[in-house]
């Protein structure tokens, strides 16, 4: 999740050019290599551009013999990381059915399904079995954790610790550290729950505190609900 992020200055020139290409001359088979390079750049620099990736998927649709399934897989992983935005589906609409039947794509579709239906435990289990796919893209874990927190914060005013732990796949001491960090910087409040449990109170928003809703037109930017937290460990 998260749209364009800060890129190192030298890279800014290249991204700017590719974005320009997509805006000005998108129906051009010659830009295919540039778009493929741009996907790899998004992976290594942890940036993201849906428009450029859709443009590439379209070109693959026009000339299927030039399709690189490795690049397509990377695009899909990046799209998963953009959740809750529906980018993953948008990409699937452009990928031929026979390609989607390949093993790695079936796995990615299953992962997407788990995330779409809030099945975080199953998601992390499956992701662990498919490390080769997801570890190839830096920032994957953090992006999914941010999505998990987003959905939880839409739903709960107070989250029991085990529920949070399962959703973001962090436990024990790591979770303690994580929670301390969020309490210090992210406005989270840690409370004592029933028995010896812990309750986590996420920042209030209009979805878990309807009294905060000012009008139907108001909507909360994604970044306010879930801070993009720094990488821990």
């Amino acid at each position, binding site marked *: 999740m998260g749209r364009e992020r800060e890129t190192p200055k030298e890279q800014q020139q290249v991204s700017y050019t590719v974005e320009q290409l997509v805006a000005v001359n998108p129906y051009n088979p010659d830009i295919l290599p540039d778009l493929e390079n741009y996907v790899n750049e998004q992976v290594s620099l942890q940036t993201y551009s849906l428009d450029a990736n859709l443009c590439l998927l*379209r070109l693959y649709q026009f000339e299927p013999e030039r399709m690189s399934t490795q690049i397509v897989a990377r695009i899909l992983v990046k799209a998963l990381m953009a959740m809750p935005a529906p980018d993953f589906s948008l990409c699937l609409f452009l990928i031929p*059915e026979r390609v989607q039947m390949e093993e790695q794509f079936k796995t990615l579709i299953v992962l997407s399904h788990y995330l779409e239906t809030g099945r975080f435990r199953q998601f992390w289990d499956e992701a662990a079995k498919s490390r080769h796919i997801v570890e190839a893209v830096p920032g994957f874990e953090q992006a999914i954790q941010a999505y998990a927190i987003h959905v939880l914060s*839409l739903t709960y005013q*107070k989250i*029991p610790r085990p529920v949070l732990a399962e959703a973001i796949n962090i436990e024990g001491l790591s979770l303690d550290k994580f929670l301390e960090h969020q309490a210090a910087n992210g406005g989270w409040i840690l409370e004592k729950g029933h028995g010896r449990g812990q309750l986590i109170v996420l920042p209030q928003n209009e979805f878990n505190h309807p009294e905060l809703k000012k009008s139907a037109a108001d909507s909360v930017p994604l970044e306010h609900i879930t801070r993009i937290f720094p990488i821990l460990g």
Partner: protein
Amino acid sequence: MATNYDYEEAPATYDEAHRQDLGYDPNFVPDSVKSLVVHLYRHIREKNVYEIHQMYEISFQTLSDRLFKDTPWPSVDAVAHFVDNDQVFCLLYREMWFRHIYARLSPTLKQRIDSWDNYCSLFQVVLHSVVNMQLPNQWLWDMVDEFVYQFQSFCQYRAKMKNKTEQEIALLRQYDQAWNVYGVLNYLQAFVEKSNIIQILEQEKEGLEQFTATDGYDYSGGSNVLKVLGYFSMVGLLRVHCLLGDYQTGLKCLLPIDISQQGVYTSVIGSHITTIYHYGFANLMLRRYVDAIREFNKMLLYIYKTKQYHQKSPQYEQILKKNEQMYALLAICLSLCPQVKLVEETVNSQLREKYGEKMARMQRYDDEAFAIYDELFSYACPKFITPSAPSFEEPLVNYNQDAYRLQLKLFLYEVKQQQLLSGVRTFLKVYSTISLGKLANYMEVDDPTLRTILLTYKHKTHAVDSEGKVISNADVDFYIDDVRKTFSLCKYLCAAEKMCFKLPCVLYNFIAADTDGIHKQLWTNLRLGYVKT
């Protein structure tokens, strides 16, 4: 082996046989046709837009009905000398000539290719030379619309390789540039760019330009052709992208047009409907149900009020067809996102009449429900295409349904994921607070499963709009809180919804008694549809 022959000299082909049956002579020009082209040519030179429109819309249709019910119009060569062999007029005439073939007859492959050539020539003239004409918006819209339609038709035709003759395959191989997807997209894009239409619309907002106010017409002695073609090409691009399954980009192409207002797109009924139909469909696939519902509602109401005025028009049948398709799409949207308050009374009653029963069944999410979603989607969706060139290797197959099957499959997949939501909704109509434990019990699922169901409800009812903001689609919603030491669901109503849940009187006493067994029974009854709320 057939090479570069003109249809008029075609040896034993479909064309020849067909023509001989009907006694069609391309060189014979009835007086009424001569009169039409002469007058039309004069009106175009005199920039008499009203007269042009009358001839284009009425006279051409009348003659088609009377004289050319199932034959082509006279060839352009036969009429050229009546109009000073004017290049542009001949290109326009030919465009109408081919359009007639597509509408009344069945184009041969050669005709499809020739039509593409004609569009190329016509578009080159408009893009690269100074065209000093004013044409009615109806005509300019029809050109763009027909261009995209013929592209779609060609892709469908080409994808049916199984029964192609050797001649056809040879032609396809030879003329591989005809209706090439790059060509189609780039022409539309070229119109948008060369006309500068995006900047014109921007500047119009600041009062620096006049475009919408004059319906796109140029009252300072210039031409409206490039500008209006550029404008309509944005709708053309939306349509092509929808045919390819790229809904996001399609909507982006439409962005410069503000559909919350009247505009040049509403000046022609066909353009208005095509815009809203594709806008709505794209939003449906993007899960922005509220946006889709709003626009379908407005459009359907407009058609209801104005269709009587179009009864005589050649577009009438198309208007009716799109009307029915949009009702089907609206039924789908409302089944996935029950925001009935967004739908106007008249539209709602029409909807109930056409799809009331089906909508009730769709919301049950059983096997039958999926069959209905399938049926409505298949009826109402665009004719998706596979844009790539076919494989000429044996065995030759038909793959014209592939694109449609993929979109349908992914759509039904999404519907399946939302299956669990209707249970939550039904429940939310009755209770304002309930513990998670009890709720899991009534829904006959375990606690972790209930959690995933509730998270799914939240995720699916909160869409991300084009600016990355989270917007709630839900008409009724909840949050989970620690209520008296028990995790419970607390309902709240969204937007301007009034609390309107009504329990049947006979059950009030039971609810007041607040016993587990009664609640469970109520829940079961609700699920089985015995109790209406």
